[in-house]
């Protein structure tokens, strides 16, 4: 059974699901992502509506994004314009987090290069990863 990774974009960073979970197919992986998003949103107020999840395959290549605003049940009670605004904000924030994480990764890699070039012990290591972190907003 194929393995999928469910990386969470929250509070300005990407929280990685390194182990991943086995799902029968992409449809099952999407249902799993929706279930996890629902669990994270439950009782959490409006803050989590701007979170998103990047679902990646075994090679950690991004397959699709799940935007929490799209599955937030409470938004159903709001006017369509408000729902659209939340969805748009969620997508923009996703793009912003991806850019921020890519910038952080560049900074870390630069530190590593400088450490190597100057022969200093390599005290830093890359925590941010490529692949899924570079998923494009709106590819769902």
């Amino acid at each position, binding site marked *: 059974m194929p393995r999928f990774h469910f990386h969470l974009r929250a509070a300005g960073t990407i929280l990685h699901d390194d182990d991943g979970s086995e799902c029968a197919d992409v449809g099952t992986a999407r249902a799993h992502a929706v279930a*996890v998003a629902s669990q994270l949103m439950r009782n959490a107020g409006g803050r989590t509506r701007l979170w998103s999840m990047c679902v990646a395959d075994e090679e950690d290549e991004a397959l699709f994004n799940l935007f929490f605003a799209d599955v937030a049940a409470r938004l159903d009670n709001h006017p369509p314009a408000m729902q659209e605004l939340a969805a748009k904000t969620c997508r923009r924030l996703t793009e912003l987090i991806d850019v921020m994480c890519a910038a952080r990764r560049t900074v870390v890699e630069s530190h590593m290069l400088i450490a190597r070039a100057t022969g200093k012990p390599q005290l830093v290591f890359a925590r941010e990863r490529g692949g899924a972190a570079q998923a494009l907003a709106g590819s769902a």
Partner: protein
Amino acid sequence: MPIRLENHILAGLPPSDLALLAPSLHVVPSPQNGGPQQHELERDHVYFPHEGIVSLLAITPDGDTIEMASAGRDGAIGPIPPFDLQDGVLVGLGALRASQIAVARLQLVMGESETLRAAIEACGDALLLQLRQNLVCGGLHPVEHRLPRWLLEAADRLQSDVIPATQETVAQRLGVRRTTVTLLASKLQEIGAIRWGRSRIEIFDRALLASEACTCHAALRDRMGARLPVDRPAPQKSVGR
């Protein structure tokens, strides 16, 4: 061979009550040496843990689980009279060492001693407090705060900052998917509160973890502390078997 009474409830009993219980108390063997494995325990017994944790889990027809209550060496758990917990499942966590007694036998013995009855009823009260607090917590608090709460309570019950549990085990206790726990554990690791290995969680910064937890941890600790000898060191006693 005498049992070292590290369970605070048993250790707090007068010798005459221990003598009443001793013939019916048996030690649950620990099949594994530590590790995150769960051992399903007999439902018609009450457990007094000396090491490890015993949890009472509710199971839905779909197989989903959630922890209703748990006990470490500070308490007792099981179908404590008058509670009938036949729908739940009792499981152990970690290197479990607990004294068990059949509930039918416990009921008989409780009739013979007022102090023993009071001690067991206090355990029942504590169980009810947990059930109430967990109902509030599960209904009102996000899993983002429930996970740190669970970790703090597990550490309290184990009296250790190392919890032998996998993310799958913790997910079963919280009634959520393993992925949900993985992502939230990742956040707690990022801020330096914990380190989660393959099958053990190490708490690095208890204050930081507490700041991420909901108020239920402190509330329950205070309320249970008024009923059980939670923070009292266990007197060194032993009893037969």
